[in-house]
């Protein structure tokens, strides 16, 4: 008898989306509990006391698993179904390396979106150079980083496919440009079109509407990041 799987998330989060894609690719049924992050529930505070963030995965009675990429590796290892990570240890290391690289990129991406002047320009250059490095990881002639099907790295990078457009619209900046990153843009389109992804991809206009009020917060975070650099 399968133990119930619950995912605590919130509308519009790319990190929650990552976990939903992983669960669906793996064929694991789950209950999605949507949080209002302005009014965090006792459930969330109990299960993720340190970070108080979503996503949080609850599998049966086990203590919560937090942090989206850690959750995805858990899903891959705990459930049967198609593998999300490659089976070869070296390929696995490469997938983890580039997923970690994405994490390091987020600062320059954020600064490039939400600041202006020379600070913004410098970060935009850095971000685009990072996108080029990621783009080079796409296997020749394949739709996805994972090959013919979506894998761990596609999920890790997946936020770019949908949310980059969302943030660009809110910020009024254009960073992911077809002429500059044709292969990555092609990948983004394939990712969005994928049937499994489509099942848990929040409507773009609704996400823009939900996240636009957070613009000032984003700007202040970006300024703090730029100050620390």
């Amino acid at each position, binding site marked *: 008898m399968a133990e119930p799987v619950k995912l605590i998330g919130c509308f519009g989060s790319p990190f929650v989306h990552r976990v939903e894609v992983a669960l669906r690719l793996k064929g694991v049924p789950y209950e999605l509990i949507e949080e209002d992050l302005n009014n965090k529930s006792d459930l969330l505070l109990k299960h993720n006391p340190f970070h108080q963030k979503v996503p949080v995965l609850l599998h049966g009675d086990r203590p919560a*698993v937090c942090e989206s990429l850690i959750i995805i590796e858990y899903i891959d290892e705990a459930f049967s179904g198609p593998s999300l990570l490659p089976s070869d240890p070296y390929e696995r*290391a490469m997938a983890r390396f580039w997923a970690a690289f994405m994490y390091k990129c987020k600062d320059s991406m954020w600064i490039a979106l939400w600041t202006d002047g020379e600070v913004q320009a410098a970060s935009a250059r850095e971000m685009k150079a990072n996108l080029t490095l990621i783009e080079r990881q796409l296997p020749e002639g394949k739709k996805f980083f994972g090959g013919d099907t979506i894998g761990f790295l596609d999920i890790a990078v997946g936020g770019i496919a949908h949310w980059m457009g969302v943030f660009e619209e809110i910020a009024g900046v254009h960073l992911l440009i077809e002429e500059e990153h044709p292969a990555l843009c092609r990948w983004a389109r394939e990712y969005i079109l994928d049937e499994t992804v489509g099942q848990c991809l929040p409507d773009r206009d609704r996400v823009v509407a939900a996240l636009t009020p957070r613009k000032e917060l984003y700007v202040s975070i970006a300024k703090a990041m730029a100050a620390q650099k």
Partner: protein
Amino acid sequence: MDHQQEEKVQLFGMWASPYVYKVKWALSIKGMEYEYVEEDLGNKSGQLLEHNPVHKKVPVLVYNGRPVAESDVIVQFIDDVWKGQGGRILPEDPHERAMARFWARFVPDKLSPPIWKWFTTAGGEEQEAAREAAVEHLRVLEAELNLGRNEFFGGDSVGLVDLSLGALAYVIPMYEEIIGARLITEEMFPSLYAWMGRFLAAPPVKDHLPPMEELKLRFRAIREYFLKNA
């Protein structure tokens, strides 16, 4: 032919880097032999730049000609490749693995930044705030260690979380000596304090530690630099 003889393992490192030691300890847990290449980070070798073009940093592990960079990635790679050999770095159970990965990330994401800030800031409000933040995170780790009631975060032997935290076992006492203030005392953190001694004496660790006097001089110079350029 012995399988191990066919494998060529190189580790590119630098004598003061805690991330390099993390990889050395991981290789030691597996009983793996390797060729160590010391890098001068002010004058990086062509080999290093070729093996880690993205970050240009150490450590880099090269296994049969294929490079792996980023210490967290390298340690998991080591555990994967030499799965049946030596000790386990990550537990068998998927949920325990997830917990180990979570706590291993806690160190660089939450704990190390305030400790570094405390060390590189002159005495005063800002330094005190950093110390308090560090203490808060240390309390969380202390509780986690108590929960397991084991010798190490990894159980009976050194595991992923111990490796992640490990360098702090010798770095924190050095910082304390240089600053002239304590961060971890036996009274405040009995479990962590005991863990520090056990970690430094653990078989995979004890013969693979940096030269302490040189490291202390280096840290003194670092603190002076930060205080002067504040």
